């Protein structure tokens, strides 16, 4: 009896003791080192004035704002490039994944080459290639690549027209209202189908709603949209710039490109595994009860495939978000570059800043994982 208890408790106590010892050792040393150097530990620096500017920011920021605001700017930039990357990598990934299953020999081989090519080259190398080799070779603004005179691509960035709204909030609310009504339309259609067997053209109705409701706001609510086009302006004899419009910095473009292309390969493999994972019997049974190809895809294959596709794909989205920290290698002001780079170098508070940065990423990862676990439990096929 006793020996069993010892066997149970001794290892645990030893493990806990070791962990406490290691942490204690680190903290003790850190304390001594900081005392010796006259550095103190504290998060008060977050309220200090940052006094450096950030190249690209979605929210208002100037050098007189605090380090905490700089942290927020970095965080938003990270999320921005992650969202853009996720959007494009999903589209590309789905297309390539389906192409991998195509009966067409050429298309399938090309898709395979795509996947094998972008997957086996390190992401950092791809990023360097896009930023230092490809985008650096773009022409100066004077000879910028011209897209129908409304958009220009140069070494300084991609300039696109800026949306200038009046009464944007009304338009925004109308879109929300349309989205909610679409949700109710679908519920209504489903209920009708189950109760009376009548078919309600839900898709057509939703399509009309999403078009008409926002369009109405233009007509009756005074919403209007105009565009501000980028215009080439001469600063000096040889230096030109674009005024007006929105300038997308080449750093953002290179990072989004590299992330999308690299992650799209993993998404493609996931999609392929998902669709292949739906048994052939399912498709045959669905066909035998008279469903059309489109209906088979929508009602039988996709729901089952999604169950296989979504968990690893969410993992890949998470990886993409973590990989966006490579922005520190090119000058894109994401969380790592702004906070764990500039801010850390100016204040010298390495421990605090790196802890905050790691904690931020950890929070993002853990929340997405928790969400994924909840989704998995909800759609899990309960095995007997």
């Amino acid at each position: 009896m006793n020996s069993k208890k010892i066997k149970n408790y001794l290892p645990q106590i030893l493990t806990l003791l070791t962990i406490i010892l290691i942490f204690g050792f680190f903290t003790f040393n850190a304390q001594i080192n900081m005392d010796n150097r006259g550095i103190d530990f504290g998060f008060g620096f977050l309220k200090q004035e940052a006094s450096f500017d950030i190249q690209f920011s979605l929210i208002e920021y100037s050098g007189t704002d605090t380090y905490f605001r700089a942290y927020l700017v970095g965080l938003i930039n990270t999320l921005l490039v992650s969202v853009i990357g996720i959007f494009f990598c999903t589209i590309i990934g789905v297309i390539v994944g389906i192409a991998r299953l195509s009966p067409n020999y050429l298309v399938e081989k090309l898709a395979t080459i795509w996947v094998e090519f972008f997957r086996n080259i390190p992401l950092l190398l791809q990023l360097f290639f896009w930023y230092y080799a490809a985008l650096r070779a773009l022409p100066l603004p004077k000879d910028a690549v011209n897209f129908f005179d409304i958009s220009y691509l140069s070494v300084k960035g991609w300039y696109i027209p800026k949306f200038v709204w009046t009464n944007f909030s009304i338009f925004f609310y109308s879109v929300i209202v349309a989205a909610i009504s679409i949700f109710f339309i679908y519920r209504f259609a489903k209920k009708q189908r189950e109760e009376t067997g009548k078919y309600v053209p839900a898709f057509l109705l939703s399509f009309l709603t999403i078009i008409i409701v926002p369009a109405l706001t233009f007509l009756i609510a005074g919403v209007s949209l105009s565009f501000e086009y980028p215009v080439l302006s001469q600063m000096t004899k040889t230096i030109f710039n674009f005024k007006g419009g929105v300038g997308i910095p080449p750093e953002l473009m290179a990072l989004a490109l590299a992330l999308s292309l690299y992650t799209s390969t993993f998404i493609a493999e996931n999609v392929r595994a998902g669709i292949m994972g739906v048994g052939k019997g399912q498709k045959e049974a669905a066909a035998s009860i008279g469903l059309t190809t489109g209906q088979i895809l929508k009602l039988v294959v996709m729901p089952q495939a999604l169950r296989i596709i979504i968990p690893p794909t969410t993992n890949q989205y998470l990886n993409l978000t973590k990989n966006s920290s490579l922005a520190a290698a090119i000058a894109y002001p994401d969380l790592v570059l702004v906070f764990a780079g500039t801010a850390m170098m100016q204040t010298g508070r390495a421990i605090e800043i790196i802890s905050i940065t790691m904690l931020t990423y950890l929070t993002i990862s853990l929340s997405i994982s928790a969400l994924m676990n909840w989704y998995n439990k909800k759609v899990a096929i309960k095995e007997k």
Partner: protein
Amino acid sequence: MINNLIFKKPNVNNLKQYVSIGLLFLTFSFLDVFLNSLFKINLTSALPGFISFFLPLIIGFIGFYLIRIEHTGNVFLDTANKKINLTPFNSVLTLLSIFVLVKYIPLLLNWLIFEANISGTTKEDCTGNGACWVFIKVWIKRFMYGMYPNAEQWRINTAFLILFVTVGSAFFIPEKYKKYLISFSILGLPLIAFILIYFLISGGFFGLEWVETGAWGGLSLTFIVSFFALIFCFPIGVFLALGRRSDLPAIKYSSIGFIEFWRGVPLITVLFMSAVMFPMFLPDGVYMDKLIRAIIAITLFEAAYMAEVVRGGLQALPRGQYDAAKSLGLGYWRMNFLVILPQALKLVIPGIANTFLALVKDTPLIYVVGLLELVGMIGLGKTNPKWLGMATEGYVFAGVVFWVICFSMSRYSQKLEKELSTER
């Protein structure tokens, strides 16, 4: 007669005429694109721009329509039809793919090979429009070995040779000793690796000149970091996986905490931590080498991913194995090392190979702590005043090297997966 040709659907009867006309159309359409891209000759310049742009597509489409005949009996035609010409949509896809290939592959080959320069020793020797491979040729030793002294480079080669021989021999030992394989790879291999790195590559003993870690670099550093991180992260990952599946709560939750922490943060922040934070945690005056800190950081990071891979294998084993081992009276450790782990690890060899692949692809990040492996060395070379503007050549070279390594490894792991799945 012409009416019949145009309006009758192609079938086996008028095979010969349709196929020949179809092939004619196809040839014309491909030729147009080819000449246009490579020699800038526009065969259809007589027509207005819009039509001449889409003409190859239309002609090709008609050509494919004409040769789409089922069950002709001609093997070549049938396979071609099945593979690239199944439906009209398919034929459009095929056409577009071929056009893209024909348009860009010659340009690529031109840049890579035909107009490239490889002879010479300075940038001025690159006279052509193509790639300047002289840059790679001149810097190759640096890219491979970093700043490691030329005379001592045999030491790195020897170290890797010994490592390969050791790992390779594991496949050839007699059955009797196979059960000790796991213990060897968990305990013996790290020790050998450590000895190799400390005495052979770093040196300073037995008459070998000491080479500081700041001088290590290039592709050899990539391999050093990858191999040694893998060898060290494997045992840690196994222990973490076992810990996570343990019934003792303290051990279980510490393992979970450790794994989830390292999996949730990006590698670049971990490397920052090792470069900037970690020195603060050491006693005053104790200084740990930069490379060792980086390897420790990468090892711990990958150990968490390895733990998840091993856990997958442990979970896949049927409970019967555990019960049978326990009924034989085997204790916890003997059960795991002699019965459970050998089977579980065999299941997840592809997963381990994938982790190693990810490790190799993650090594370029150590440039943030100032260590220059292959990508870092290329960055150094391209900003050298004598060689400005060689970024593309450098990164293409690095890309090719990494691609060859990673592709072979992934192919090998796929082969392993097939072999092992049939075994069961």
